[in-house]
Protein backbone atom coordinates (compact mmCIF):
# COMPACT_ATOMS: atom_id res chain seq x y z
CA UNK A 1 0.00 0.00 0.00
CA UNK A 2 1.41 3.32 -1.10
CA UNK A 3 0.18 6.36 0.82
CA UNK A 4 1.35 8.90 -1.74
CA UNK A 5 -0.54 7.06 -4.49
CA UNK A 6 -3.71 6.76 -2.40
CA UNK A 7 -3.60 10.44 -1.48
CA UNK A 8 -3.13 11.58 -5.06
CA UNK A 9 -5.92 9.26 -6.29
CA UNK A 10 -8.25 10.69 -3.63
CA UNK A 11 -7.29 14.25 -4.58
CA UNK A 12 -8.00 13.48 -8.24
CA UNK A 13 -11.45 12.08 -7.37
CA UNK A 14 -12.15 15.13 -5.20
CA UNK A 15 -10.99 17.58 -7.89
CA UNK A 16 -13.01 16.00 -10.72
CA UNK A 17 -16.13 15.76 -8.54
CA UNK A 18 -15.82 19.39 -7.48
CA UNK A 19 -15.16 20.46 -11.07
CA UNK A 20 -18.40 18.78 -12.21
CA UNK A 21 -20.33 20.48 -9.43
CA UNK A 22 -18.87 23.92 -10.04
CA UNK A 23 -18.76 23.81 -13.85
CA UNK A 24 -22.31 25.06 -14.62
CA UNK A 25 -21.96 27.87 -12.09
CA UNK A 26 -18.53 28.91 -13.41
CA UNK A 27 -19.66 28.90 -17.05
CA UNK A 28 -22.84 30.83 -16.38
CA UNK A 29 -21.13 33.07 -13.85
CA UNK A 30 -23.10 36.13 -12.86
CA UNK A 31 -24.42 36.76 -16.33
CA UNK A 32 -28.12 36.76 -16.97
CA UNK A 33 -29.14 33.11 -17.24
CA UNK A 34 -30.04 32.26 -20.87
CA UNK A 35 -33.70 31.35 -21.40
CA UNK A 36 -32.73 27.82 -22.48
CA UNK A 37 -30.81 27.13 -19.24
CA UNK A 38 -33.64 28.68 -17.24
CA UNK A 39 -36.01 26.29 -18.98
CA UNK A 40 -33.74 23.33 -18.21
CA UNK A 41 -33.49 24.44 -14.59
CA UNK A 42 -37.26 24.34 -14.41
CA UNK A 43 -37.92 20.98 -16.05
CA UNK A 44 -34.77 18.98 -15.25
CA UNK A 45 -35.55 18.28 -11.57
CA UNK A 46 -38.61 16.20 -12.57
CA UNK A 47 -36.68 14.14 -15.12
CA UNK A 48 -33.62 13.76 -12.86
CA UNK A 49 -35.65 12.53 -9.91
CA UNK A 50 -37.20 9.85 -12.14
CA UNK A 51 -33.72 8.91 -13.33
CA UNK A 52 -32.45 8.65 -9.73
CA UNK A 53 -35.30 6.33 -8.80
CA UNK A 54 -34.43 4.07 -11.75
CA UNK A 55 -30.75 4.32 -10.75
CA UNK A 56 -31.56 3.11 -7.23
CA UNK A 57 -33.48 0.16 -8.65
CA UNK A 58 -30.88 -0.79 -11.25
CA UNK A 59 -29.69 -3.90 -9.40
CA UNK A 60 -33.04 -5.66 -9.72
CA UNK A 61 -32.69 -8.99 -11.50
CA UNK A 62 -35.79 -9.73 -13.57
CA UNK A 63 -34.56 -13.14 -14.63
CA UNK A 64 -34.44 -14.65 -11.15
CA UNK A 65 -36.75 -14.95 -8.17
CA UNK A 66 -38.12 -12.74 -6.70
CA UNK A 67 -38.00 -10.56 -9.84
CA UNK A 68 -37.73 -7.31 -7.90
CA UNK A 69 -40.95 -8.01 -6.03
CA UNK A 70 -39.59 -6.57 -2.73
CA UNK A 71 -38.55 -3.34 -4.43
CA UNK A 72 -41.77 -2.86 -6.40
CA UNK A 73 -44.10 -3.59 -3.50
CA UNK A 74 -42.11 -1.21 -1.28
CA UNK A 75 -41.98 1.56 -3.90
CA UNK A 76 -45.75 1.26 -4.49
CA UNK A 77 -46.30 1.43 -0.73
CA UNK A 78 -44.16 4.58 -0.50
CA UNK A 79 -46.18 6.16 -3.33
CA UNK A 80 -49.48 5.12 -1.73
CA UNK A 81 -48.62 6.35 1.74
CA UNK A 82 -47.20 9.57 0.35
CA UNK A 83 -50.26 10.40 -1.79
CA UNK A 84 -52.43 9.61 1.22
CA UNK A 85 -50.58 11.48 3.98
CA UNK A 86 -48.06 13.76 2.18
CA UNK A 87 -45.61 13.16 5.04
CA UNK A 88 -42.11 12.43 3.69
CA UNK A 89 -40.68 10.90 6.86
CA UNK A 90 -43.69 8.65 7.35
CA UNK A 91 -43.61 7.43 3.73
CA UNK A 92 -39.91 6.62 3.96
CA UNK A 93 -40.10 4.84 7.32
CA UNK A 94 -43.05 2.65 6.28
CA UNK A 95 -41.50 1.87 2.87
CA UNK A 96 -38.13 0.97 4.36
CA UNK A 97 -39.61 -1.26 7.09
CA UNK A 98 -41.70 -3.00 4.42
CA UNK A 99 -38.58 -3.58 2.31
CA UNK A 100 -36.53 -4.87 5.26
CA UNK A 101 -39.29 -7.32 6.19
CA UNK A 102 -39.85 -8.45 2.59
CA UNK A 103 -36.19 -9.24 1.82
CA UNK A 104 -36.18 -11.53 4.86
CA UNK A 105 -39.33 -13.49 4.02
CA UNK A 106 -39.41 -13.58 0.19
Amino acid sequence: MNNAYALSAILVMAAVTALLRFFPFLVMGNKKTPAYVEYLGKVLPYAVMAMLVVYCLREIDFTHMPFGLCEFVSVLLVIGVHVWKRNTLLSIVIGTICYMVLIRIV
Partner: protein
Amino acid sequence: MKGKILKRAFIDTLPVLSGYMVLGIGFGIVLERNGYGVMWAFLMSLLIYAGSMQYAGIELLAGAASLPAVALTTLMVNARHLFYGISMIDKYKGAGAKKPYMIFALTDETYSLVCYTKYETEKERHFYSFWVSLFDQCYWVTGSVLGSVIGSALPFDTAGIEFSMTALFVTVFVEQWISTKNHISAVCGLLASVVCLAIFGKDSFLIPSMIAILVILTLIRKKVACDE
Protein backbone atom coordinates in the same frame (compact mmCIF):
# COMPACT_ATOMS: atom_id res chain seq x y z
CA MET B 1 -37.18 32.79 12.00
CA LYS B 2 -33.71 31.35 11.55
CA GLY B 3 -34.36 28.84 14.33
CA LYS B 4 -37.52 27.73 12.60
CA ILE B 5 -35.77 27.21 9.25
CA LEU B 6 -32.91 25.40 10.99
CA LYS B 7 -35.40 23.05 12.64
CA ARG B 8 -37.14 22.46 9.31
CA ALA B 9 -33.77 21.73 7.67
CA PHE B 10 -32.93 19.21 10.38
CA ILE B 11 -36.29 17.43 10.19
CA ASP B 12 -36.14 17.34 6.38
CA THR B 13 -32.69 15.74 6.50
CA LEU B 14 -33.69 12.95 8.91
CA PRO B 15 -34.27 10.46 6.06
CA VAL B 16 -30.82 11.39 4.74
CA LEU B 17 -29.43 10.88 8.26
CA SER B 18 -30.58 7.26 8.28
CA GLY B 19 -29.55 6.65 4.68
CA TYR B 20 -26.12 8.27 4.98
CA MET B 21 -25.39 6.57 8.29
CA VAL B 22 -26.02 3.17 6.76
CA LEU B 23 -24.29 3.85 3.44
CA GLY B 24 -21.46 5.72 5.21
CA ILE B 25 -20.92 2.90 7.71
CA GLY B 26 -20.92 0.45 4.81
CA PHE B 27 -18.31 2.53 3.04
CA GLY B 28 -16.12 2.77 6.15
CA ILE B 29 -16.27 -0.99 6.68
CA VAL B 30 -15.34 -1.87 3.09
CA LEU B 31 -12.56 0.73 2.98
CA GLU B 32 -11.12 -0.55 6.24
CA ARG B 33 -11.17 -4.13 4.91
CA ASN B 34 -9.10 -2.91 1.96
CA GLY B 35 -6.39 -1.67 4.28
CA TYR B 36 -7.32 2.02 4.52
CA GLY B 37 -8.18 3.04 8.07
CA VAL B 38 -10.21 5.74 9.71
CA MET B 39 -8.15 8.74 8.57
CA TRP B 40 -8.65 7.70 4.94
CA ALA B 41 -12.40 7.30 5.44
CA PHE B 42 -12.54 10.75 7.00
CA LEU B 43 -10.44 12.32 4.26
CA MET B 44 -12.46 10.81 1.41
CA SER B 45 -15.84 11.74 2.89
CA LEU B 46 -14.63 15.25 3.64
CA LEU B 47 -12.99 15.99 0.28
CA ILE B 48 -14.82 13.86 -2.31
CA TYR B 49 -18.23 13.65 -0.65
CA ALA B 50 -19.98 11.59 -3.32
CA GLY B 51 -21.37 8.26 -2.15
CA SER B 52 -21.35 6.03 -5.19
CA MET B 53 -18.04 7.49 -6.35
CA GLN B 54 -16.41 6.70 -3.01
CA TYR B 55 -17.54 3.08 -3.28
CA ALA B 56 -16.12 2.99 -6.81
CA GLY B 57 -13.01 4.68 -5.41
CA ILE B 58 -12.32 1.73 -3.11
CA GLU B 59 -12.19 -0.52 -6.18
CA LEU B 60 -9.84 1.91 -7.92
CA LEU B 61 -7.52 2.13 -4.92
CA ALA B 62 -7.53 -1.64 -4.45
CA GLY B 63 -6.70 -2.14 -8.13
CA ALA B 64 -4.06 0.63 -8.06
CA ALA B 65 -5.74 2.25 -11.07
CA SER B 66 -3.73 4.89 -12.91
CA LEU B 67 -4.58 8.52 -12.12
CA PRO B 68 -6.05 9.23 -15.61
CA ALA B 69 -8.27 6.16 -15.17
CA VAL B 70 -9.30 7.48 -11.76
CA ALA B 71 -10.16 10.87 -13.29
CA LEU B 72 -12.15 9.31 -16.14
CA THR B 73 -14.13 6.99 -13.84
CA THR B 74 -14.97 9.93 -11.60
CA LEU B 75 -16.11 11.91 -14.62
CA MET B 76 -18.43 9.10 -15.73
CA VAL B 77 -19.87 8.24 -12.33
CA ASN B 78 -20.44 11.86 -11.30
CA ALA B 79 -21.49 13.43 -14.62
CA ARG B 80 -25.05 13.71 -13.31
CA HIS B 81 -23.85 16.50 -11.02
CA LEU B 82 -23.67 18.74 -14.09
CA PHE B 83 -27.45 18.38 -14.22
CA TYR B 84 -27.88 19.45 -10.64
CA GLY B 85 -25.68 22.47 -11.21
CA ILE B 86 -27.63 23.56 -14.27
CA SER B 87 -30.93 23.42 -12.42
CA MET B 88 -29.59 25.25 -9.35
CA ILE B 89 -27.91 28.19 -11.13
CA ASP B 90 -30.88 30.46 -10.60
CA LYS B 91 -31.86 29.12 -7.19
CA TYR B 92 -28.37 29.58 -5.72
CA LYS B 93 -27.93 33.06 -7.18
CA GLY B 94 -27.00 35.64 -4.57
CA ALA B 95 -26.12 33.12 -1.85
CA GLY B 96 -22.87 34.99 -1.13
CA ALA B 97 -20.18 33.42 1.04
CA LYS B 98 -22.25 30.26 1.58
CA LYS B 99 -22.46 29.57 -2.15
CA PRO B 100 -19.13 27.77 -2.77
CA TYR B 101 -19.86 25.28 0.00
CA MET B 102 -23.46 24.80 -1.18
CA ILE B 103 -22.16 23.96 -4.66
CA PHE B 104 -19.43 21.67 -3.34
CA ALA B 105 -21.90 19.77 -1.17
CA LEU B 106 -24.62 19.28 -3.79
CA THR B 107 -25.10 15.49 -3.58
CA ASP B 108 -28.05 13.50 -4.93
CA GLU B 109 -29.82 13.60 -1.59
CA THR B 110 -29.10 17.25 -0.85
CA TYR B 111 -30.28 18.13 -4.34
CA SER B 112 -33.53 16.25 -3.80
CA LEU B 113 -34.23 18.45 -0.76
CA VAL B 114 -33.17 21.83 -2.12
CA CYS B 115 -34.36 21.55 -5.74
CA TYR B 116 -37.92 22.60 -5.11
CA THR B 117 -38.64 25.89 -3.47
CA LYS B 118 -40.03 25.91 0.03
CA TYR B 119 -39.42 29.51 1.02
CA GLU B 120 -40.60 32.83 -0.37
CA THR B 121 -37.50 34.96 0.07
CA GLU B 122 -34.10 34.26 -1.39
CA LYS B 123 -32.42 34.74 1.99
CA GLU B 124 -34.52 32.10 3.72
CA ARG B 125 -34.04 29.72 0.82
CA HIS B 126 -30.25 30.05 0.90
CA PHE B 127 -30.14 29.71 4.68
CA TYR B 128 -32.22 26.54 4.43
CA SER B 129 -30.17 25.08 1.55
CA PHE B 130 -26.88 25.80 3.32
CA TRP B 131 -27.90 23.99 6.49
CA VAL B 132 -29.38 21.04 4.61
CA SER B 133 -26.02 20.76 2.79
CA LEU B 134 -24.00 20.97 6.01
CA PHE B 135 -26.19 18.57 8.00
CA ASP B 136 -26.01 16.02 5.19
CA GLN B 137 -22.23 16.11 4.98
CA CYS B 138 -21.94 15.78 8.76
CA TYR B 139 -24.05 12.61 8.61
CA TRP B 140 -21.94 11.21 5.78
CA VAL B 141 -18.58 11.91 7.44
CA THR B 142 -19.84 10.59 10.79
CA GLY B 143 -21.18 7.44 9.14
CA SER B 144 -17.98 6.61 7.29
CA VAL B 145 -15.76 7.25 10.33
CA LEU B 146 -18.10 5.16 12.47
CA GLY B 147 -18.03 2.33 9.93
CA SER B 148 -14.27 2.34 9.83
CA VAL B 149 -13.97 2.25 13.62
CA ILE B 150 -16.66 -0.24 14.64
CA GLY B 151 -16.36 -2.32 11.49
CA SER B 152 -18.45 -5.42 11.37
CA ALA B 153 -19.06 -5.45 15.14
CA LEU B 154 -22.58 -4.05 14.65
CA PRO B 155 -24.95 -5.95 16.96
CA PHE B 156 -27.94 -5.97 14.58
CA ASP B 157 -28.69 -6.87 11.00
CA THR B 158 -29.27 -3.70 9.00
CA ALA B 159 -29.64 -5.31 5.58
CA GLY B 160 -32.17 -3.42 3.51
CA ILE B 161 -32.08 -0.14 5.45
CA GLU B 162 -30.36 1.46 2.46
CA PHE B 163 -33.80 1.38 0.82
CA SER B 164 -34.50 4.61 2.75
CA MET B 165 -32.50 6.40 0.04
CA THR B 166 -34.68 4.98 -2.74
CA ALA B 167 -37.78 5.83 -0.72
CA LEU B 168 -36.57 9.42 -0.32
CA PHE B 169 -36.23 9.85 -4.07
CA VAL B 170 -39.65 8.27 -4.64
CA THR B 171 -41.34 10.67 -2.20
CA VAL B 172 -39.67 13.67 -3.84
CA PHE B 173 -40.81 12.36 -7.23
CA VAL B 174 -44.41 11.98 -5.99
CA GLU B 175 -44.28 15.40 -4.33
CA GLN B 176 -43.11 17.00 -7.58
CA TRP B 177 -45.71 15.06 -9.55
CA ILE B 178 -48.54 16.36 -7.35
CA SER B 179 -47.22 19.93 -7.39
CA THR B 180 -47.36 20.38 -11.17
CA LYS B 181 -49.87 19.74 -13.92
CA ASN B 182 -47.22 19.24 -16.56
CA HIS B 183 -45.83 15.73 -16.31
CA ILE B 184 -43.95 15.59 -19.61
CA SER B 185 -40.53 16.03 -18.00
CA ALA B 186 -41.12 13.41 -15.30
CA VAL B 187 -42.45 10.87 -17.80
CA CYS B 188 -39.59 11.62 -20.19
CA GLY B 189 -37.02 11.07 -17.42
CA LEU B 190 -38.65 7.79 -16.40
CA LEU B 191 -38.95 6.40 -19.94
CA ALA B 192 -35.49 7.52 -21.05
CA SER B 193 -33.86 5.94 -17.98
CA VAL B 194 -35.77 2.66 -18.23
CA VAL B 195 -35.09 2.32 -21.96
CA CYS B 196 -31.40 3.17 -21.52
CA LEU B 197 -31.13 0.73 -18.60
CA ALA B 198 -32.55 -2.01 -20.83
CA ILE B 199 -30.18 -1.16 -23.70
CA PHE B 200 -26.92 -0.23 -21.94
CA GLY B 201 -27.14 -2.23 -18.71
CA LYS B 202 -26.89 -1.12 -15.09
CA ASP B 203 -23.26 -0.04 -15.11
CA SER B 204 -23.35 2.36 -18.02
CA PHE B 205 -26.90 3.64 -18.54
CA LEU B 206 -26.62 6.93 -16.66
CA ILE B 207 -24.77 8.94 -19.30
CA PRO B 208 -26.94 7.76 -22.24
CA SER B 209 -30.02 8.52 -20.09
CA MET B 210 -28.81 12.05 -19.41
CA ILE B 211 -28.13 12.67 -23.08
CA ALA B 212 -31.54 11.27 -24.05
CA ILE B 213 -33.27 13.42 -21.41
CA LEU B 214 -31.45 16.56 -22.58
CA VAL B 215 -32.29 15.89 -26.23
CA ILE B 216 -35.97 15.14 -25.55
CA LEU B 217 -36.44 18.13 -23.23
CA THR B 218 -34.79 20.37 -25.81
CA LEU B 219 -36.99 19.04 -28.61
CA ILE B 220 -40.22 19.47 -26.66
CA ARG B 221 -39.26 22.89 -25.29
CA LYS B 222 -41.78 24.80 -27.41
CA LYS B 223 -44.58 22.44 -26.47
CA VAL B 224 -43.84 22.69 -22.75
CA ALA B 225 -43.55 26.48 -22.93
CA CYS B 226 -46.95 26.63 -24.65
CA ASP B 227 -48.61 24.52 -21.96
CA GLU B 228 -47.54 26.89 -19.20
